[in-house]
């Protein structure tokens, strides 16, 4: 395995090196960096300008010499200067954070959501849910990103802000949302028509009542979950995860472990209040690690010898889930104050962050969310469709395999057949997909940033191309191409770990 990784690393590095040469040669020929200088009235000023740029960019040297010059300094960490003499390192430093945040958020969200929807859709093949998901995936897949992004920016952001000024839901909106949620729940239920209809009715009524109550109490203007809802969600999570990992059984050790984890979570939500007022990222990370550790111990102890594995799984997932709920609650609680800071318009359409923003951890978190939400949503849609379609196809293929039939013949419950046999095999090909997708997302980020007016890597690249300025283009490529190479390698390594057949070769 180590030799495999080392070889893979070596080949990737060579390919990447060759790619830098190709991109450099193209970038050096993409336009005329002297175009602007030539516009000056001819005379000494023009000649001086041309001479200065020629000197700065070594335009009098052949392109290969310039490439090796760039390569040499890039290896020492110096990315050169652009046509106006600005340091590209400084430009990149300002740009890279926002772009990577966007790319990472969009990628992670589309992987998680896309795989989930794809799996459910495959498990309910030919159901109404499956057909709607398949059609929606096709539609999203066919949307031009810049068009969607512009629509989102123009309408969703503005309308959402207007609505948040006086957040009341009209009855028909409540009905529509409840209808969708209820249809989704009904599609999830296994069983006959009657249990589906019951689920639908219950979900519809519950959703209507909930939304109406939230709307009437003005919750949307000053949201938050409160300890009661946190507790309820945590317990529901405990039941859900236990059902997923070992089946629904109230007295089983995994259920006890998950419940214990949920209760521990709720208790710490109350006890840790002083810490959670204004933490920093390290505190949150530390808390997450502690949560996982404590829950692991709970599962280990309560699981006993017979149920250790599933008890640990249920407890850890429940614990982390409860943590996420508490985190969300804190964010929501800060919403009213953040909204005030932004003059009542919390959803932003321009830029990647409010300049010189000062606030608590939660408020700056909301600021990031407010700026990232719409670009991420736009960028997600297309990848989401890709992941959904591939996951669905892959799962359907795996579910027809002989070894899945063997698993059923053993007498395993359907839940275990899916989670232990279909899912693991079905997700292996998806690792490769993430590697291809990252390039598309990188390109999409350029488009999205343009629409939302971010001054990030997209701007740097487009300015570079338009001005025939190779250094910023190379900086963009180092990051984007580097991400593609890294993802490809990670995918290969993950593949090797997931599929024992690859490990040997």
């Amino acid at each position, binding site marked *: 395995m180590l030799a495999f990784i080392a070889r893979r690393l070596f*080949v990737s590095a060579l*390919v*990447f090196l*060759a*790619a830098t040469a*190709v*991109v450099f040669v*193209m*970038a050096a*020929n*993409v*336009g005329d960096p002297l175009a602007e200088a030539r516009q000056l009235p001819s005379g000494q000023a023009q000649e001086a300008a041309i001479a200065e740029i020629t000197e700065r960019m070594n335009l009098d040297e052949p392109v290969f010499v310039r490439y090796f010059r760039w390569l040499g300094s890039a290896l020492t960490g110096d990315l050169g200067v652009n046509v106006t003499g600005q340091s590209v390192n400084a430009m990149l430093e300002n740009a890279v954070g926002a772009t990577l945040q966007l790319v990472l958020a969009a990628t992670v969200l589309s992987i998680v959501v896309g795989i989930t929807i794809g799996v459910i859709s495959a498990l309910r093949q030919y159901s109404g849910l499956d057909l709607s998901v398949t059609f929606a995936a*096709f*539609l999203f*897949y*066919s*949307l*031009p*990103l*810049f*068009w969607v992004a*512009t629509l989102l920016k*123009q309408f969703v952001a503005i309308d959402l802000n207007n609505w948040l000024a006086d957040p009341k839901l009209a009855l028909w909106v409540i009905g529509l949302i409840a209808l969708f949620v209820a249809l989704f729940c009904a599609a999830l239920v296994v069983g006959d028509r009657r249990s589906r209809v019951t689920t639908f009715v219950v979900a519809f009524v519950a959703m209507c009542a909930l939304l109406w109550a939230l709307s009437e109490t003005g919750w949307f203007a000053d949201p938050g979950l409160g300890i009661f809802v946190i507790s309820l969600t945590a317990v529901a999570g405990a039941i859900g995860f236990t059902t997923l990992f070992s089946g629904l059984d109230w007295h089983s050790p995994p259920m006890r472990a998950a419940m214990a984890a949920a209760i521990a979570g709720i208790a710490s939500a109350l006890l840790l209040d002083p810490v959670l007022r204004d933490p920093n990222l390290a505190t949150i990370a530390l808390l997450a690690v502690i949560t996982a550790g404590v829950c692991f111990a709970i599962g280990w102890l309560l699981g006993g010898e017979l149920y250790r594995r599933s008890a640990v799984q249920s407890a850890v997932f429940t614990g982390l889930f409860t943590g996420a709920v508490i985190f969300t609650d804190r964010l929501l609680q800060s919403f009213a104050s953040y909204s005030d800071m932004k003059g009542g318009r919390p959803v932003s359409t321009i830029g990647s962050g409010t300049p010189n923003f000062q606030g608590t951890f939660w408020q700056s978190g909301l600021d990031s969310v407010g700026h990232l939400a719409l670009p991420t949503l736009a960028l997600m849609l297309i990848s989401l469709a890709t992941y959904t379609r591939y996951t669905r196809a892959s799962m*359907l*293929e795996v579910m*027809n395999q002989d070894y899945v039939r063997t698993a059923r013949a053993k007498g395993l419950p359907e839940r275990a057949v899916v989670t232990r046999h279909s899912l693991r095999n079905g997700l292996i090909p998806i690792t490769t997909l993430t590697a*291809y997708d990252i*390039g*598309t997302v*990188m*390109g*999409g980020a*350029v*488009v999205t940033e*343009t629409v939302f007016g971010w001054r990030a890597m997209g701007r740097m*690249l*487009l300015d570079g*191309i*338009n001005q025939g300025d190779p250094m910023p*283009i190379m900086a*963009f*490529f180092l990051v*984007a*191409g580097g991400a*593609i*190479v890294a993802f*490809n390698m990670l995918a290969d390594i993950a593949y090797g770990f997931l599929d024992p057949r690859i490990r040997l070769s």
Partner: protein
Amino acid sequence: MRRTRTKPAQAPSGTDAVQGMGVRTRTQGQLVLRRFIRHKGAVAGMIGLGAIVLLAVTSIGAGPIPGWWPKDFSSTGTLVDGGKPTLSLLPGFLGGSGLQIGEHPFGQDNVGRDYFALTMRGTQVSLVIAFIVGIVATFVGTLVGAVAGYFRGKSEAALMRLTDLVITIPTLLFAGMVAVMAGDRGIVVLGLVLGLVTWTPTARLIRGEVLSIREKEFVIAARSFGTSARRIIVKHILPNTVGIIIVSVTLAIASAIILESALSFLGLGVQPPDTSLGRIISDYQNALTVRPWLFYWPGLFIIGIVLSVNFIGDGLRDAFDPRQNRVRD
């Protein structure tokens, strides 16, 4: 398995749903066509794409074909009713103004250009570019994929490294640079260069397919007769990859439309005076709040084309490679 001798009248068709149960014989082509026609989305896609192509070609005409639409896309005129679209599909009893096309069905832009004619022109250009890209990308991809898949060893390694290299460069960066270098040499050149940078998915698909076909008995048989590699690829392997090649044409066309419109939107693609659907959206994006129709129409046409092509591709894939539930015995 016992191999029953088959009579033409009752040959069990290996590709049909029920193997060896005596199903009427159909040729491969008939089977594919039948499955394709049964795919509702694919048929809808065919109709949708056909309608869009027909509308785009005949309305304002193309080359020798005269158009029936009286206005052209470049001349300005007086604004009628603020340039609002006159097209109405909502009948009077539902509160609309009845079925009518009117003077400017898609409205006018701020200088009074007929937006229907402009959208049609954009559609024509986008379609031409997409088809060129689709064909070039499929041709190069098939060539690379087939050669890499068939020949093991050095040529495979070299071609796969080349593919890896192209994949390492984000498509938008690569395509953006070649598009700018193509400059204003016209849409055909733009299509060609874009095709030259988007062939990698096809190459991967074809290579995978060829890798599995080259191990099939009939190829081994042909090799054992001493058939030349070129002949095996052309006569035995490529015909068996026709399905996947056709499917990848559709995939390439769909992504080409999206790529071209994104590049044009960023100002890197089609250059004035020519226009394309992406270019139109880019030109009028700031008009969104004042004249929203300038934004909607070209977008809807992009979605219409890409959705149709994707559905056709899906139908073709199902038709060529039916993964239906098989009843085994």
